């Protein structure tokens, strides 16, 4: 799927560029894309270093395990394939809490840590496991309680009530995340059935 998307974006992009005599656009797209990709990764270094450091303290202090215990019912339901005491569970829940608290910066490092720990449970290292797909589904559905960035932008554009969209955003996020989890379950079942046949 990744292969198909990547190939189609590039081939269709180049084809359209050639057809509309927009060679400049193709060149600019390649250079700009590569530059952006590296820039984003370099930007990630600072928050990754900071949050992975802090996370280690939280782990050693037993705080992550405490979080896992407190959120056990949710964790069990969402990630039935991950043992509750496994470090992956702690990171998954830390990632989820960071999202909910609106600590956008912390969510990515904690999510990446969760991926690394889930990888230790994965029997096929180059294929995504069930739990990884669920983690992705929840993170792409963006589980936020306070959309801080959007509020900031609304303020900048002179909104009379920048936070009026919070309630609606929470509701939309909740519905969106529910659908994401349901879709994840459905496709997992289809995938399993196909694999068995």
């Amino acid at each position: 799927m990744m292969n198909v998307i990547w190939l189609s974006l590039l081939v269709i992009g180049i084809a359209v560029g050639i057809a509309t005599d927009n060679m400049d656009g193709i060149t600019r797209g390649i250079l700009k894309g590569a530059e952006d990709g590296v820039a984003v990764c370099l930007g990630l270094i600072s928050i990754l270093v900071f949050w992975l450091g802090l996370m280690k303290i939280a782990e050693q202090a037993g705080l992550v395990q405490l979080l896992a215990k407190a959120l056990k019912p949710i964790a069990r339901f969402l990630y039935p394939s991950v043992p509750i005491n496994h470090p992956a569970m702690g990171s998954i829940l830390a990632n989820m809490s960071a999202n909910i608290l609106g600590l956008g910066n912390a969510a990515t490092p904690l999510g990446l840590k969760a991926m690394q720990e889930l990888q230790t449970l994965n029997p096929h290292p180059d294929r995504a496991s069930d739990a990884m797909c669920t983690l992705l589904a929840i993170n792409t559905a963006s589980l936020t309680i306070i959309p801080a960035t959007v509020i900031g932008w609304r303020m900048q554009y002179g909104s009379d009530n920048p936070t009026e969209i919070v309630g609606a955003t929470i509701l939309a996020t909740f519905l969106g995340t529910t659908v994401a989890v349901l879709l994840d379950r459905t496709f997992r079942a289809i995938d399993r059935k196909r694999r068995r046949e």
Partner: protein
Amino acid sequence: MMEWINTLSEWALPIVVASILVIGHFRKVPVYETFVEGAKEGFPTAIKIIPHLVAMMVAVSVFRESGALDMLLRLLRPVFEVLSIPVEIIPMALLRPISGSGSSAVMFDIFQTYGPDSLLGRIASVLQGSSDTTLYVLTVYFGSVGIRNARYAVKVGLLSDLAAAIFSVLVVYWVFDL
């Protein structure tokens, strides 16, 4: 509402950081050494993502700069109209999963033209807040551990984005009682 939300978002970060440090210290964790130990993993993780992200961003950027994206937007317009998503929101809904800066640019344009407190401004705000750049999250998360076969994750992500767009419209209509 405004006040406690502002307070909460301002206090969340300092409280989380301070609690982890203080509790760590009282539980006899050598905080400085432990921090450095954990932080070491940050650099290699970021570096490992570079090839994945460059690959994806080049593809997205070529697709956009060549004019292919505009063509796709025109092609998909009727589909979104059937789903009762306002025409002005369509480019944003389509850009949301592939480009974070692209979709916020459309949102700024909507804010500028119609105002953030208009119906369209509210829908754009809710859409931006209730979804994420799926393709980016996918690339970064799977790239960091070298997953090549994403199985059904792409489908789930993109379909949820479509659901998020529809929900954003419906919820704004419902909450603001229109």
